[in-house]
């Protein structure tokens, strides 16, 4: 299968977006995790918006998307490296 230059760039861009989204989600997971463990600090800091129950629900929702984003980010990076290596060999 021939992948055009434009398609390759698009795939790389998607990989980059997945990386940034994953990073954002990772920070969100850290905040919600902290909201579960240290709810006495996080609840007043967020003016009651993130209490322990809310933090725990949100924390549970982040697991699957984060794994998908991480795998996508790694997958694109590995693919990009391998195609570059092939190009050099040619």
């Amino acid at each position, binding site marked *: 299968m021939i992948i055009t230059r434009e398609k390759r760039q698009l795939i790389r861009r998607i990989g980059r977006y997945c990386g940034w989204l994953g990073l954002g989600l990772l920070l969100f997971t850290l905040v919600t995790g902290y909201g*579960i*463990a240290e709810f006495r600090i996080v609840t007043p800091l967020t003016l009651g918006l993130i209490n322990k129950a*809310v933090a725990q*629900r949100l924390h549970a929702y982040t697991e699957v998307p984060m794994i998908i984003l991480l795998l996508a980010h790694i997958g694109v990076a590995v693919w990009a490296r391998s195609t570059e290596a092939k190009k050099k060999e040619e």
Partner: protein
Amino acid sequence: MKTKLHIPILMVLGGILLAACGATGEQKMTSRLPRVEIQEYEGEDLSSVDDFRENSIKGPQTVSLEGYTLKVSGLVDNPLALSYEQVLERDSYSKVVTLHCVEGWDATILWEGVLLDDLFKEALVKDSAVIAIFHAADGYTSSLPVAYLKDKQILLAYKMNGEDVPRERGFPFVVVAEAKWGYKWVKWVTEIELSNDPDYKGYWESFGYSNNGDLDLPYFEP
């Protein structure tokens, strides 16, 4: 002159002798020895009382036994107000139960205390009472069905692994709500209120945690 000099000396010596006798014969010495925690019970490894995460709503409470009473109130014919010592005078029971916290950790402890059913019998709980609401010193509340407390022989514990329940773990009394999530294990219990409202929601339950609290069910209401 000589005799006059001897009298005060003899009085001082006599005083010292009396004090020494008092110290050895009358006074009782009390020394605090290092705590001894049971680590294994009938072949089962136990967690330490220090293996818990402190996650109460207002931090560890200090309950002074001076003036403390455990109240059994609400739908009862004989309301109780028992001192700590009075509770300890009742028959005691012990069992190994594991606490599972919604945060993901657990602790297996040998609990010792009184049967809640014994207190209910004494308080003459009315037939219309379906749930017991546990009130804690920090304002925390949670409820459990009366039938569950009776059938499962649930303890109101005052000892963990053979030593008094530490302040951080809920001294003087903790509800050992076996087979229920940790938020049902009320610490620093001050009152047990019998009610006919099966939908009563305790502190965490009002934030969406399951009112049932069963370990084999999700801890959030669907």
